[in-house]
């Protein structure tokens, strides 16, 4: 269910680290809780966020949820397909990333949990 190739947060984001960069998305549990996603508010490329800082928001028909950056970093790319097709987050939450960041401290994974712990958290 929850891929073991990445880390998770208790706020229901995932982060997949590759060297000094990482991609960030929301979990299957999060998309289920939200329902049909209709809008993703994305940051600008070049914006820097601390670990745990809000970097955007995601909205379903009924609900708004803040997005938090699992690790500190600078945005190097945003998934612009979400502007026109936000519903892809529902269809493939673990495949569709929202932002890519250049990590400020690539080794600082403190506060993140692994797939097993996350699955337990939301069970």
């Amino acid at each position: 269910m929850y891929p073991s190739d990445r880390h998770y947060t208790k706020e229901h984001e995932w982060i997949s680290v590759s060297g000094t960069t990482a991609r960030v998305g929301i979990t299957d549990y999060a998309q289920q809780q939200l329902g049909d996603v209709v809008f993703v508010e994305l940051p600008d490329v070049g914006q820097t966020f601390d670990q745990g800082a809000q970097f955007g928001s995601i909205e379903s028909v009924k609900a708004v949820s803040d997005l938090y950056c699992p690790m500190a970093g600078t945005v190097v790319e945003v998934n612009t397909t979400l502007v026109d097709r936000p519903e892809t987050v529902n269809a493939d939450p673990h495949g569709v990333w929202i932002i890519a960041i250049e990590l400020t401290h690539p080794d600082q994974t403190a506060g993140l949990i692994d797939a097993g712990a996350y699955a337990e958290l939301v069970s």
Partner: protein
Amino acid sequence: MTDAPVAAPLKTPLHGRHLALGAKMVTFGGWEMPLQYAGITEEHLAVRRAAGLFDVSHMGEIEVAGTDALAAVQRISTNDAARLDIGQAQYSALATPEGTFVDDLLVYRLADEHFMLVVNAANIAKDFAWIRDGIQGVGDAVAVNTSSRYALIAVQGPRALEIVQTLTDVDLASIGYYRFATGEVANVRSTISRTGYTGEDGFEIFVAPQVAERLWGALLSAGAPAGLRPAGLGARDTLRLEAAMRLSGQDIDETTSVLEAGLGWIVGWEKPEFVGREALVRQRVAGVTRKLVGFEMIERGIARHGHPVYVGEERVGVVTSGTRTPFLEKAIGLTYLPSAASAPGSECAIEIRGRRVRARVVPLPFYTRARG
């Protein structure tokens, strides 16, 4: 044994059906109701394209009967109930002396001297007290809260008629819009009303609570081949907003007048007396200073209930309803704007999480079904 918590939400007779269908439940107006089953978008589109099945048993029913029942209803309801034939319903308001909303409602004329008022779930106790007090001294008329005697199931959408028709001998096509008939649906004694809260054709069916599950099951089975889907409060809200139907407690309340809400057509101006008349007549002569308008976002963003609204640099109010609607695929909403800034095409700005986003006033309703 322990006592149930005082604030435990009420459950409709169909509660078990919703759980069995895997609904996501939510508390609304003191009731535990289905927010969604498969998803708001899918349910919304099912209603626009085929049909949706709604449990609206949380709605309240208050009956007024007696030889002076008409006079009693005329006093507390803004619309002119004398225009109702037996078997006809009308949209109306319970107004305060200031011409603002206690609630909105449907008035059904069951018989010459017997009316049924269908009110919003969250307001049943308040409305009943208001009505009971309001009709005192009228003469021979008594108000009874009969909410617990009815379950209410709505079938809404372009295929609603053909679906319900498979379960009844009543000629549904002969029931006009805002008319109702009594008869059996799926062998269940029903009052079948051609009304709804979605902007589509459809029926609202009043039945006894103990047979509600039978009717619900029969409608689901009969409708499935035609594309009928169970639909929750989430879709009900996005559907009614596209149709610009006001939501009591949100778009209209005790701070907004019937005229400001654009509902002058539910005021029986020729009635000599009703609660709120003097204030509304005064407002009609002077003109209202603000009006309920529809807007759509020009820039990216979704306006939500409570977001601040600006005209120029002046904060003029808040969004009363707002969402991104599944059928029109636009971010739309309702708000009150100063009359001078309320014409279609005027611009305003919605503050969404600290950022002002441009919006444009558009004519209401946002959505009108194709007829004929």
